[in-house]
């Protein structure tokens, strides 16, 4: 007879592991309120909300990177949404020549270390004399965001019954009407989730971005700004304040994406 209760040692190890994953993030929040500017003394000597106003009013260097990051993430996500959905639609069809290779190709940008994607793009830009700009950053981001959208879209399409598409055709809808009125409403939440995850990924990306932004051209995304502050700090708690903003900007999309794709039993054509 198997017991339904986990052995104590397993429960301790599992809980400990989860705590290990979460406690460091909580510390970031704590240090945003510290009165100590230069070091990481624990416990903090005092607490203040001063750094939030400082970040808002006295640090104009934060805003351009923030806007750039939002812009890059928005455009890269849009490109990835279109391309990812197209591949997903193709891949759910019957087997065709080169299907395996294509799925490998989509996966490659996140399967290989980011430094390779970055270095590869950088050497390609160098060879073709393409100057670094916002668009070179977007090019890199869109490439690895495709797989995120693809994963979400393809999972939903597999669950979608082919019957509803045939029913739509039988009722006289053409391919575009079927797409607009049948496919899109059923795919909506999966695409939204994929888009949010892609946005979060792009907003936070630094490893590829450093290679595609070029140094000193002024194109500095928020993560690159943060990295600079980590290496050459001034007003350390301000970095924490920005870190909280970055954390929130990635946290809520992820949470929303989870609830959007959870279960999925409401998908049409499932109740066969």
């Amino acid at each position, binding site marked *: 007879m198997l017991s339904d209760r986990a052995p104590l040692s397993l429960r301790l190890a599992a809980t400990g*592991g989860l705590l290990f994953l*979460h406690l460091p993030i909580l510390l970031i929040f704590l240090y945003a309120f510290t009165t100590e500017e230069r*070091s990481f003394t624990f416990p903090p000597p005092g607490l203040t909300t001063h750094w939030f106003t400082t970040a808002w009013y006295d640090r104009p260097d934060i805003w351009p990177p923030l806007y750039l990051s939002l812009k890059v993430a928005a455009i890269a996500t849009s490109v990835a949404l*279109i391309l990812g959905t197209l591949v997903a639609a193709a891949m759910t069809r019957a087997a065709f020549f080169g299907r395996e290779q294509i799925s490998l190709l989509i996966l490659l940008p996140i399967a290989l270390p980011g*430094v390779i994607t970055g270095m590869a793009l950088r050497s390609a830009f160098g060879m073709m004399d393409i100057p670094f700009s916002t668009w070179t950053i977007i090019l890199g981001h869109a490439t690895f965001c*495709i797989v995120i959208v693809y994963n979400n879209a393809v999972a939903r399409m597999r669950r979608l019954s082919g019957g509803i598409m045939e029913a739509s055709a039988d009722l006289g809808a053409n391919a575009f009407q079927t797409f607009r009125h049948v496919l899109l409403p059923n795919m909506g939440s999966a695409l939204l989730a994929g888009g949010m995850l892609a946005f979060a990924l792009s907003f936070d990306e630094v490893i590829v971005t450093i290679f595609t932004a070029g140094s000193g051209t002024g194109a500095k995304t928020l993560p690159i700004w943060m990295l600079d502050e980590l290496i050459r700090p001034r007003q350390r708690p301000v970095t924490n304040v920005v870190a909280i903003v970055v954390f929130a900007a990635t946290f809520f999309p992820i949470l929303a994406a989870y609830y959007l794709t959870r279960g999925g039993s409401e998908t049409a054509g499932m109740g066969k």
Partner: protein
Amino acid sequence: MTTSAILPARGLADRLTALFWRRPKVLLALLLTPPLLWLGVVYLGSLAALLLQSFYSIDEFSGVVKEEFTLKTYGELFRPSNFDILVRTVTMAALVTLACAALAFPIAYFAARYAKGHWKAAFYLGVMLPLWSSYLVKVYAWKLILAKEGILGWAAEQTHTGWIISGLLSIPGLEGSSLSTSPIGTFMVFVYIWLPYMILPMQAALERVPNSMLEASADLGATRGQTFRTVVLPLALPGIIAGSIFTFSLTLGDYIIPQIIGNSANFIGMAVYQLQGTAGNIPLAAAFAVVPILIMLIYLAIARRMGAFDAL
């Protein structure tokens, strides 16, 4: 005789629909062309450029890239100072992978086998949130933890266990003024950052182990340990290998963590970053970047033979 559709074709959209129906390959080609153009040109094109550059060399006097085929740049990888970087990176990646597997297993096993209902969702989110939350924020958090005056040092002082940390820091090769400037710190942060990538495939593999097999094993008189070794572990192995692909590959290429935490000993990613930037030696940077590709190709080939791809 043409098709006698019940509804007559009205416009371009209808005619296209008929075309897609008769020739599904046309639709397939239309769907695949834009994404394949993007990935083929932008991504594969870039990888080709990288490969090409790695066969160029740099003129030692003028610092200009000579655009002719040579293996000289690859030869430079075997210079002791460069070869050290390769060995150090691969060793770190292997150690991080092992540590991640050991830490991930209890979490994955508990979540797969014992967690129910709300707890299951909590465990899933508990792994997903750290996975997706900002990479730099997490690295930064560890800087706060490992710094000399940080929380770990404080905890050690409160519990009078500071000698453990100073003992670790006096081991030859692992020295540092604090954990944040020692290779131990680099190792810990790598393990922390990549741990969720190990948990998820492992949990997926463990979910697929049927309870009936565990019952059968118990009925046949196996102890818990025996069931674990002979039933659970072999069935979970593809998931473990799938997770190890991520932890190994990500550690191989990372250059932010060793730059911020550790004794600034070089890793492959850092070498690539520095060589293409300040040193301006793009060919050698490209050659360095090819090494993780080769290692990962070998790794993936082995993983494929062990059935890890079904667990991805």
